[in-house]
Structure formats: C-alpha cells, structure tokens
C-alpha cells in the first residue's frame, strides 16, 4: 500500500513539475512574441532601430516580470 501511495505522489509531483515547466516555457514564448510584435509595430511607425529595440526589450522585461509576479501570487 505504502508503495502505491508513494508511487502516486511521485507521479502527481512529476506531472505538476512538467506542467509548470510547460507553462513557463509557454509564457516565455508569449513574452518573446510580444517583444517581436512591439518591435515590428515600432518599425512600421517609423522609429529608428535603436528605439524599436529599446521598446521591445522594455516590453519583454515587463512581460517576464509580470509573469513572474503572477506565478508567485498563484503559488
């Protein structure tokens, strides 16, 4: 019985970890998408490469920070 419970706990813990990892990979990808789209939009509006890159980096960092915060609150 002990072995079954231990096995179930192990499976549950593994699934949670895999899920969390997938979620953070997914969120990372979304932040990357936002950064790329912010860059493209800035270029379309006639911004210099420097300004478009600065905007993109700022939004990427803010997105990562917000993701980290929401993960922290959920925990």
């Amino acid at each position, binding site marked *: 019985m002990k072995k079954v419970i231990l096995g179930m706990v192990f499976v549950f813990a593994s699934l949670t970890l895999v899920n969390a990892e997938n979620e953070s990979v997914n969120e990372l990808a979304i932040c990357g998408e936002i950064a790329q*789209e912010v860059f493209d939009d800035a270029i379309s509006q006639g911004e210099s490469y420097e300004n478009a890159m600065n905007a993109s980096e700022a939004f990427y*960092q803010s997105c990562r920070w917000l993701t980290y915060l929401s993960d922290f609150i959920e925990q």
Partner: protein
Amino acid sequence: MKIITLLSFLLISITSFSQKKNIYVTYKKDLINYSINNKNAEKQEAINSMLNDLKNSSNSLRYNLIINDYESLFSFEKKLVIDADEKSLTFIVNAGDSGGDFYMNTKSKELIRSKHLSGETFNIISSIDSIKWELTNESKKIGNFDCYKAKTIKVVENSKGIFNHTVEAWYAPEIPFGFGPAGYGGLPGLIIEIQYQNVRFFTSKIELNTKKVFKIVKPTKGKEVTKEEYNEITKKMANDFLKSLRK
C-alpha cells in the same frame, strides 16, 4: 589721473563683456500619443497596461542643457531615482532618440551625440547645419518668453522605408543662444519647447547667468561614426536581440 580712471573703466568694461555666459536649462519630457498596436485583444490589453506604467515614469525624467557661450551639452539627469526597471528606463530615456550626451558648438558647427551601447561608446558625428529649419511668424507666449515656431524634418530610415517626421520647435529670440534639447539647435534663440514623433520636451527651469559651475567637454573617447553607420550598428544589434528571443 583722468587717463588712469578712464583706462580702468575701459578694462572693467572689457572684462565683464568678455566674461562667459553660463546658462542652465532643465527640460522635462512627455511621451505623447505613444501607441503600440497589436491584433490580439489580450496582448493589446497587456501592452496598454505596460505602456501606461512607462508613460507615468516618463513624467519624472529631467534633462539638463548647459550652455557656455558657443558650446552646449545636453544630457539626462542620471541622479534622479525613477520607479522603473533598467530596460524600461532605457526605453523612456531614449525615446525620441534623446539618449546619450549631445555636444554642440556653434562656432565649429559640430554636433556630436555620445552614446553608450552594449559596452561601447559611440560618438555620432554630424553638423548643426544639417538641420534645415523653416522659420514661421507663428508666435505664442511660453512662460515669460515670446516664442516663435520653426519646423524641420527628422528623417528615419528603416526596413519599412524612409519616414519624414515633422519637428516643431518654439524658440525664444530673447535668449539668443541657438541651442536646444536632443541635438536640436541652430535657431535664432533657445528652444523652449520641441515636439516630434511621440515625444515633447519642454523647459521647466531656465537659469540665465547661473552661479552653477560647470565645464563643457567635447566627447572624444569612443568610436566615431556617422548617423548612417550608427543606424547599421543598431540594426544588427536589434536583429541579434530578436534572434535570441527565438532560441
């Protein structure tokens, strides 16, 4: 005796006339009508929220323009504590291509933007004469000064084409020093307010004949590049950054 008195008077007059004028101007910056568009509603909401935070932080930015007769130096006041992370601060400080130190010399017509980027300092060399102003008769009072409007075009070239952005400056002939913020100058008076793309600089304090002690040093340390070369450098850096996101 009379001759000595007269000579002394002349000497004092010449000394005070030749004494350098020190002017200290503080500018504030607004991000106006800054928008980033995204087709996805959820992403747009997130972007708007982040953008609002950035706009709020931009209200506390201060830039200083120091003038010493025929030279000036414009730079961001780094000592201020701004509630923003490093990347956000870089974005709002640089918005409108106003990051770095701008050195102007009305005698030699030199205009140098000294910019630190990815561990390297670049001195972007151009000339005050490259700014072609159209002076207008339109005037308005800003603070105590009668200001006149002047217009020019800021050209930006990127992968989407060549963009001509209108620049509107308000200058005060009462302060006959042809300087201003973010490398704009060459007008018959100090630029009190300037607006282009999505930024607006406006003076918050003008100290004529200030007692503040400062020295204007022409930037020499760093790699000298033209505007076009700098554009190519930043294009490569931007591509590298975007590639790193895809890994």
